[in-house]
């Protein structure tokens, strides 16, 4: 297991390098002097020189990238132009909010998605199956920012059940999680349902029936583990996708978080913050993929054997 973990990490290394290189290149691809994109207007000449020396701006791009990455990995992501504080501090201040939203949305999507998908598969072909699956599928096609706005209008303004925006209390999390979650629920419910239907057709299931087990027991004790494997794979692949949803929704609900920070900074062209946020979000996606892989390996003895 450890060997597999290390191998997966090594395989992710080029992805990380490529991702960080693109993030690094942003300031160099934007028209103008990169140093102007890293400092506030009217910065002193000494400050400019200091920064140029620190990032080796007179040296080849590869060296600059190495210096930048080294600084980033040691927690130095530069200084925010507008907010005038270290980018790392901004990110650390916002990260807990994004983590809370992202993880709750992930949990919600998984629990509800698996339950709905399993129920749809158990009652495959029934009205419940058709109506519920079609409903959440349709919901997942809609722009999540719009769903968020509608939820604010209905549940916060009309019914007054939840706060309109912000993140001051736990119930401020309910509407954002629902908004991010509907896409995740649709995805996971579909994968779960398909996985159950597929595994139920396998030979070994006939033998489970032949042993005299009840359908319910076969379904919920035996097939569940099989059906969850593709769900875990998809979760790993789509963690970034759910995180992406969180980026949008934070902004809609005016919640603090990496997504809000990123979008505000993009509008203000605060490049150091943009780079820092993108780097963090990119790493989040990669971490999710890794966890998904490992979880799958832990569930399937065949994968375990193949990798040792």
């Amino acid at each position, binding site marked *: 297991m450890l060997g597999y973990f290390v191998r997966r990490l090594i395989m992710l290394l080029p992805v990380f390098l490529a991702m960080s290189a693109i993030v690094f290149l942003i300031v160099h691809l934007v028209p103008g002097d990169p140093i102007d994109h890293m400092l506030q207007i009217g910065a002193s000449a000494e400050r400019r020189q200091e920064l140029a020396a620190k990032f080796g701006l007179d040296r080849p791009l590869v060296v600059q990238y190495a210096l930048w990455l080294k600084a980033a990995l040691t927690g130095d992501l530069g200084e925010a132009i507008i907010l005038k504080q270290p980018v790392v501090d901004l990110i650390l201040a916002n990260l807990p909010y994004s983590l809370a939203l992202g993880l709750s949305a992930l949990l919600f999507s998984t629990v509800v998605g698996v339950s709905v998908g399993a129920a749809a598969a158990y009652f495959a072909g029934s009205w419940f199956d058709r109506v519920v699956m079609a409903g959440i599928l349709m919901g997942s096609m809609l722009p999540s920012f719009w769903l968020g706005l509608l939820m604010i209008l209905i549940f916060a303004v009309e019914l007054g059940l939840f706060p309109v925006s912000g993140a001051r209390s736990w119930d401020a999390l309910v509407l954002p999680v629902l908004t991010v979650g509907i896409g995740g629920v649709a995805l996971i419910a579909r994968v779960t349902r398909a996985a159950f239907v597929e595994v139920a057709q*396998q*030979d*070994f*299931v*006939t*033998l*489970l*029936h*032949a*042993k*005299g*087990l*009840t359908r319910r027991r076969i379904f919920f004790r*035996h097939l569940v*583990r*099989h059906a969850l494997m593709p769900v875990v794979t998809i979760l790993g692949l789509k963690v970034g996708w759910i995180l992406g949803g969180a980026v949008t929704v934070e902004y809609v609900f005016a919640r603090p978080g990496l997504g809000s920070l990123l979008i505000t900074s993009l509008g203000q062209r605060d490049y150091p913050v943009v780079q820092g946020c993108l780097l963090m979000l990119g790493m989040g996606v990669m971490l999710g993929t890794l966890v998904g892989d490992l979880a799958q390996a832990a*569930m*399937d*003895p*065949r994968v375990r*054997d193949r990798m040792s």
Partner: protein
Amino acid sequence: MALLEVEGLTIGIGRFTPVQEIGFSLDRGAVLGLVGESGSGKSLTAMALMGLLPLIRGEVRAGSIVFDGVELANRPAELHRRLRGRRIALVTQNPMTSLDPIRTVGTQIDEVSRLHGGLDGRAAKARSLDLMEAMRIPRAAVVHGQYPHQLSGGMKQRIVIAMALAGDPDLLVADEPTTALDVTVQAQIVRLMVDLVKARGLALVLITHDMGVVAQACDRVVVLYAGRIAEAGPVESIFAAPHHPYTRALIGCIPVEGQARGTLIGIPGQVPGLTDYPAHCRFAPRCPAASARCRAEAPAPATIGASRVACFHPLGRGA
């Protein structure tokens, strides 16, 4: 009364009737061979005996399956389920796919005695180890903790049989139990199953397309063709004097190593598909002796010596 009495069994799937009016009976300690090519309806018959037809959207349309004096055909599903694993057990065709790939083979055997014997974990495991040893599985204690993909095909089939025996059943239904295995392993598994039948007083329905297996293992044989009985009788008399041209062809082409399963090189043509069963004798298109009558009506089974034969021109009787 025999342990299992099947009469006029007719199986339907949707608008098709892949099995029509099959009957046989079986006593404890006896082995019945159900023989035919792919598409003859033998696996469906096995599913009917197990009460598993609903899994493939099939149903018993007519006839009866009486097991130990109890009618099972078209009774509540729960009745059949309570018998499954405990009194009627199944050995399936392909040991490669018959076991749950993500649970150890041991727990899969244990499960049956826990469910039906009410044993706790420790007792169930002890019982599984006994059964595995009876199945001549070496290092049973080690194998108990292994996963299916770590075992050979023959070993997996022994596990499947051990699993079938764990509920201490009276009737074993084995659907092509050796087809997926190497020829050398095939003989061992068949021998093992026959020994079990004799030692434990089991009744065994052995489904195969291989007359060689029938000769080795069975007491009686039912030859199916396109969902109907072609010929049925004691193994010795059928091998000594087959009456149906199809039976004779089957005996004439006992499969050899390397041949694709379910095919018979000795008989040209194929079993007709479900959609185009002829109204007349279903074997007529492939039969060397077919006459105009064979292409006009379907023969009813008739008694010839110790056998029942459905043919207008039975062999060894003249025309």
